């Protein structure tokens, strides 16, 4: 049935250092996560803000920074709130060498533990409707590039 965690991975033809840069530098973070900029204080306990056009800002708090192998944070989906265990999910990125490239793996966990009020969930679903469409469009473009 519905899992508590989502695990995805991708092979990248770039060194772990470059993948680390793409993951953790504000100018990159603000394009792959959020679409209108980001700020990041890259240290355990440091804050991340993510801005979306028309969707406002959401916040994350960094848990672990072990360059260039591990980066994790808790984030609040769809609302501008300080991340706490009962309103946020944990996102962990792990990087491992893969030949001359990098295997990037992400795990988002704690999905079932979210305790949100009913009205907030409705708003969340409404806000994320547009988000999915945009991000799936990105995925489609990516897959089209792969088949060339």
């Amino acid at each position, binding site marked *: 049935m519905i899992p508590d965690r989502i695990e995805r991975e991708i092979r*990248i033809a770039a060194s772990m250092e*470059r*993948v680390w*840069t793409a993951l953790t530098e504000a100018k990159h973070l603000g394009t*792959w996560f959020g679409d209108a900029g980001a700020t990041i204080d890259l240290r355990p306990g440091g804050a991340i803000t993510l801005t979306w056009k028309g969707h406002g800002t959401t916040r994350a708090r960094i848990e672990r920074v072990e360059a260039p192998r591990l980066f994790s944070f808790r984030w609040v989906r769809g609302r501008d709130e300080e991340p706490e265990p009962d309103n946020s999910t944990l996102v962990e990125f792990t990087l491992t060498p893969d030949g001359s490239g*990098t295997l990037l793996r992400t795990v988002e966990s704690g*999905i079932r533990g979210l305790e949100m009020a009913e009205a907030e969930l409705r708003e969340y679903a409404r806000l994320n409707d547009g988000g*999915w469409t945009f*991000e799936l469009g990105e995925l489609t473009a990516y897959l089209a590039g792969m088949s060339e």
Partner: protein
Amino acid sequence: MTPRLRPGGQSAPDDALVAMTDPTRWRLLNLVAAHGEETATTLAAQLPVSRPAVARHLSILGRAGLVSGRRSGREVRYHVRPQRLEQAAQWVTQLASEWDARLAAIKRIAESLEDA
């Protein structure tokens, strides 16, 4: 299963989210799915929650379309409505698709970076 781009209309996953993000409701839903034909009394016996609390959660699950009840004598017997559960599962598929898209974007960025 192809992820749906939009959860629109009555198939929006918002009500199903209400069920799956509350731990007690989630356990209730799993118990009903596993055994079928449960009542508030039999469910309360399996959870550290009072019967009135179980009845309240069942009512929320019922409004979300995740379970439906059938009166049998003095009790109501609940079963899962698989269509709505399927929609909740699709929501998780969409979360996974979000990550696929983000990872694809990270890949594009990393592969286009010059060495420092």
